[in-house]
């Protein structure tokens, strides 16, 4: 502290900025820790410098082969995209519908404890896994193709929409539920008349968001064989068709930008 000490009222006083972390031991400890972590991480990570050294000529070859992007196989590109779109639409529909029961299960205020724990577990598990991991498992189970993609993105949507919806249900106006119960309505009737009307407007906006998000994800789950444009991209990359791959990439970027714009516009109109 550099408060005004009466003893040194006159003469030059020193002032140093108080440190962000007051305790010097902790401050330097953190710095040492950071340096230690960095050197540990860099020392243990397996970098294949020989192979990395070849990077620049390879990059030149890839980008050289990639420009100009080749749109001549437009049919293939279109088929891939149609499939991605179909996957996204069906997965969003299934996901949003299925997320409702799971959200009800995972809302502490209307679900009994065992059901609540089950609902939460489903949501946590489906949120913990990246869609690509889920996709590779579904491909292993049901084979290559759009079915695996739909199952993956349905699970992905249940995790995301279910979590937000469960939070929404936990914050509903309880008075309406009590009003319904006081009329002698059963559990399902209460849900239908007192809970759903309160969360439905939000659900519509969320579905639009999820459709956009699923369209993005459908481009990547294809990389592990779950159908859609991602599979087309992976094939092009595997066959060193870099000009076609770059064409696909450009179209993916364009579609994502358009879809983001449309979804944003619709959500603004609804909310």
């Amino acid at each position, binding site marked *: 502290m550099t408060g005004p000490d009466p003893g040194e009222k006159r003469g030059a006083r020193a002032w140093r900025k108080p440190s962000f972390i007051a305790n010097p031991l902790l401050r330097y400890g953190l710095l040492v820790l950071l340096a230690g*972590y*960095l050197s540990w*991480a*860099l020392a*243990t*990570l*397996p*970098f*294949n410098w020989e*192979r*990395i050294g070849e*990077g620049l000529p*390879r*990059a030149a070859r*890839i980008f050289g082969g990639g420009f100009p992007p080749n749109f001549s196989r437009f049919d293939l590109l279109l088929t891939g995209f*149609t*499939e991605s*779109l*179909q*996957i996204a*639409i*069906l997965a969003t*529909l299934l996901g949003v519908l299925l997320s409702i029961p799971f959200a009800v299960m995972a809302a502490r205020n209307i679900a009994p404890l065992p059901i609540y724990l089950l609902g939460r577990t489903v949501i*946590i*598990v489906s949120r*913990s*896994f*990246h869609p*690509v*991991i889920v996709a*590779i*498992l*579904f491909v*292993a*189970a*049901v*084979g290559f*193709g*759009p*079915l695996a993609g739909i*199952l993956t993105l349905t699970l992905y949507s249940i995790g995301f929409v279910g979590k937000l919806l469960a939070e929404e249900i936990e914050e509903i*106006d309880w*008075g*309406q539920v009590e009003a319904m119960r006081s009329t002698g309505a059963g559990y399902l009737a209460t849900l239908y008349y007192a809970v759903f009307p*309160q969360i439905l*407007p939000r659900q519509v906006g969320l579905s639009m968001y999820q459709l956009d998000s699923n369209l*993005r994800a459908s*481009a*990547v789950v294809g*990389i*592990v064989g779950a*159908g859609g444009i991602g599979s087309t*991209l*992976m094939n092009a*990359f595997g066959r060193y068709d870099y000009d076609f791959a770059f064409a696909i*990439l450009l179209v*993916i*970027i364009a579609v*994502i*930008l358009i879809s983001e714009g449309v979804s944003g516009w619709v959500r603004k109109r609804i909310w």
Partner: protein
Amino acid sequence: MVDNDDLLAARIWRRHTPREQLVRYGVMLVTLMLVVWAVRDIDIFWPWVWDAPNQISSLGSRMWPPDPSRLGEILDAMVETVHIATLATMLTIFIALPVSYIAAQNTTPNRACLWLGRFILVASRSVNTIIWALLFVAIFGPGVLAGILAIMCRSVGFIGKLMGEAIEEIDRRPVEAMEATGASKAKVIVYAIVPQVVPAFFAIVILRWDINIRESTVLGLVGAGGIGVILQGSIDTFAWQTVATILVAIILLVLVGEAITALLRRRVM
């Protein structure tokens, strides 16, 4: 609360004029048609769909019980995964901050820089991490470097966009005061802008680190290092019990990452 909700309900109700109603039916019809088209047109062999529950439960039973025999190897790969996420997040900061500076309307030096900044952000955000990984594996070969670069390329857009928004939302008045003291542009930034965006900066970086942990678990599926490499290997050799162990490990990693994130965020706020 009740009164308020009634009011809201009343307002929504009034919006449903006949024309609005028509629009609503139109939207429903279009949605229905889209779904019918998607179901009829999609390239799915339907008998497989009815068989899917069997297949999934059979795969599930082959995974049980998880086999811990390769746990040491899995743990090493997990540490590698965390390293990739952490190093990439740290390195991203050095690129994302200048980009956010030129992509924010109130700090950008000129219009050309503004559009360059926005282009970098859009390009980075529209390409998924795994596609970036695909590209870098082709260039630098399989390994962690491709993974780190892929995560960085995607994170620049995320951190840069949010930081740019934070810069655009700062209070203009301290900036005016610093300009009035005769401070140069650099000093105005250091004193009037940086202190205002520091909390947002930490929150954004922590959030992205959490996301990056998740993303780096899949890098290995295209050969870019981390736990995904072992996962892919186990799937290819049908070692389903090892796959189960890896999946459990990933859930634990993600949950631990979330807990650390929550803790850090409370510290920073």
